[in-house]
């Protein structure tokens, strides 16, 4: 895929969606984890804390393959660099899994399942490999297509990208790595005097 040429995203999209039905076998389509009827009923009647515990014990939202894909996607959004670790080290995929596992929002859950599937369909089309197996620059190129078309929110893959970015950002900047290593947040300790502007000395801890 050449990122220099302007892409007609909608035309391109028709092609890769069409080809995906034959290129991708059903085995590549991960089966969504849907709670059983009884589990849903229990969740409804139980008190809040009990229902949270029940959801946790019900297992992960992502399959192992999906989890690996989310790890690579989130790391592409916020990668490790010389300054600090990235989304993978900050366990952002675990955070997203927890949010989705506990969510009551079926639309959001479906979007994630469909979005992860579409990412691999796109990756197969453009690079002949799944996203996880694609080279780092190919991963970036793929997400750039979505990022550059972020106003096309009628498309599920674009909505998925926006969700992925939002939840990666939230998970990363609320993690230990995000707060302490990356941003080097100075708060949550005693400050004798606010430094302010005309006194650029260091904060006491």
């Amino acid at each position, binding site marked *: 895929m050449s990122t220099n040429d302007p892409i007609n995203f909608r035309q391109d999209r028709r092609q890769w969606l069409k080809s995906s039905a034959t290129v991708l076998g059903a085995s590549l389509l991960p089966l969504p984890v849907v709670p059983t009827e009884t589990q849903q009923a229990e969740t409804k009647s139980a008190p809040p804390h009990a229902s949270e515990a029940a959801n946790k014990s019900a297992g992960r939202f992502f399959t192992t393959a999906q989890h690996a894909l989310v790890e690579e996607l989130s790391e592409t959004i916020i990668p490790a660099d010389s300054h600090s670790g990235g989304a993978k080290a900050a366990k952002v995929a675990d955070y997203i899994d927890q949010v989705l596992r506990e969510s009551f929002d079926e639309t959001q859950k479906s979007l994630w399942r469909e979005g992860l599937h579409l990412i691999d369909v796109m990756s197969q089309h453009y690079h002949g490999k799944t996203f996880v197996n694609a080279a780092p620059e190919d991963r970036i190129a793929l997400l750039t297509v979505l990022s550059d078309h972020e106003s096309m929110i009628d498309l599920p893959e674009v909505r998925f990208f926006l969700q992925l970015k939002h939840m990666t950002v939230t998970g990363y900047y609320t993690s230990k790595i995000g707060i302490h290593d990356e941003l080097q947040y100075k708060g949550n300790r005693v400050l004798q005097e*606010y430094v302010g502007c005309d006194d650029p000395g260091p904060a006491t801890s």
Partner: protein
Amino acid sequence: MPEAEVNLNKTYDAVIVGSGAAGGMAAHVLTTHGLQVLLLEAGKKLPIEQELRSMEWPYDNAHRGFLPPSSHSLTFNEYTIRNPPYSAGLEKSKHLYSYIGSSDYVKNIVVDERENPFTGTNYAWVRARCLGGKTNIWGRLALRLSDYDFKAKDRDGYGENWPISYSDIAPYYDKVDLYLGITGVPENLPYLPDSIFQRPTKLNCAELILKQGLHKMGRVLTQYRAGVTSEGLKHNKYRSRCYGRGACERKGGCDIHAAFDSPTGLIYPAMDTGNLTLRTNAVVREITVDQQTGKASGVHFVDSQTMKDYNVRAKVVIVAASTLESARLLLLSKSRLYPNGLANSSGHVGHNFCEHIMGPGVTGRAKDLVGKPPTLDDGRPGGFYLTRFRNLTEKHPKFIRGYGFEGGSGSTLFPRGTDTHGFGAAFKEEVRKNQGAFIGMGAFGEVLARYENYVELDPVVKDKWGIPSLRFHYKFGDNEHRMAEDMKETAQEMFEAAGFEIVHVASRVLTEGWSIHELGTARMGNDPKTSVLNQFEQSHDVKNLFVVDGSAFVNASCQNPTWTIMALCWRSCDYLADELKKGNL
């Protein structure tokens, strides 16, 4: 602090309904005068430090500090497109909170909207039922009003003047400053009088750049005047001085109580006098009246947990339940003598409802600060306040009254700027380098007090305790919308003058109620035909009934109301104690 049992056989000197800024202040002043006081709070006494957990890191919280998924807080769109109680589409949420209840630290402080429904026009009504009410989570901006506000009618002919002047209330502002602590910088402005300030915190660099830019335009930016003790209070053992620890910008309160809250600032010291009885979970449904004398005889409340009913007697009844709840209680207290509700011979209870309009504002970036090492900027009581500049010396052609801006700059626990386009290494670096360079501000403007903006009792809908709900008839008017347009333009113009790169200009007006500054539903005045209370917040109709919260305001001004509520309340309670001793009540 153990709560004493309410003695149902005793006649208290005074019963106070509500334990927020107003109720707490009434308890403080009256117990100091030696009165035997009963303080009733509709909500629980929360283990507040366990709720606020100001020092908890997001990664140590089960949901990174956000609400658990079983709960939902309302968004702007939900307020706009749905009517209370907002059920459609939100059925799955076990708890539904107002917009402010969006963090794990506030969820038990604000009420569940479904237990406390209301009807009518859209309104972001934020209510906190717990000991201390909204003071547990207030924004801390503590401003005085001036005769530009008290005598606003003299300046532009609109509305009514207050029955007091600045000179009447100034000594009480001083008392509030000294008793509760306030930090800020004197500016000697006639329209925004100075308080007796404790040690101020400095502005940070971007704020200083803005201040200098504004100075050339003749406009004033000053340190956030925060109801926070920066030096400590020797007379109060429940509160610590501010030690700038941080995460203060996170929605929620101050669990070292450097920021004023009613329980540690007012109620616990009042209990130490031995003159105060506190009863929580007491939902007052009616002020009872002696049909012989026409005077208030006490209140009728239901225990929020057991649903049992109680009657308590008092020589004086003080309503401090918050502007809208106080109006509701007066309207609920109908009797043969008072068919329109208590203290309502004027028909003005629930009317003249006003507040502050907000939404317009600006976000900018100070280019010189990009890439600078991170600093601790949210470990201080607040950022800055940009004082009113409209309709002071010149008359604006499009609207009357004024507005001010609250704002701040610098590093925060969760970085600003994550809505930057793109992703990857460049995005990450952009967020890191810019985190301390953003500066933002939002306006708070006066909403005119209008008789036709009002609340009344809903004929059908009731709350969890079977008490009739409020029905809203309230909308911003043309003056507010023209003012909002000006707010947006001046915000951008001032940031440009300061040399900031404009990142975002907000023009959207937020839902009515968003400022949480509702006022005016039982206004003071000299004429009993057009006002509910006299200058001492005493009912014109019922001499032993006082309404001491924001409902007494005659107009909203553009300054945040809490400090004025407390100063007025102190003045009224001094008068009350004196009148009671003289046998005039």
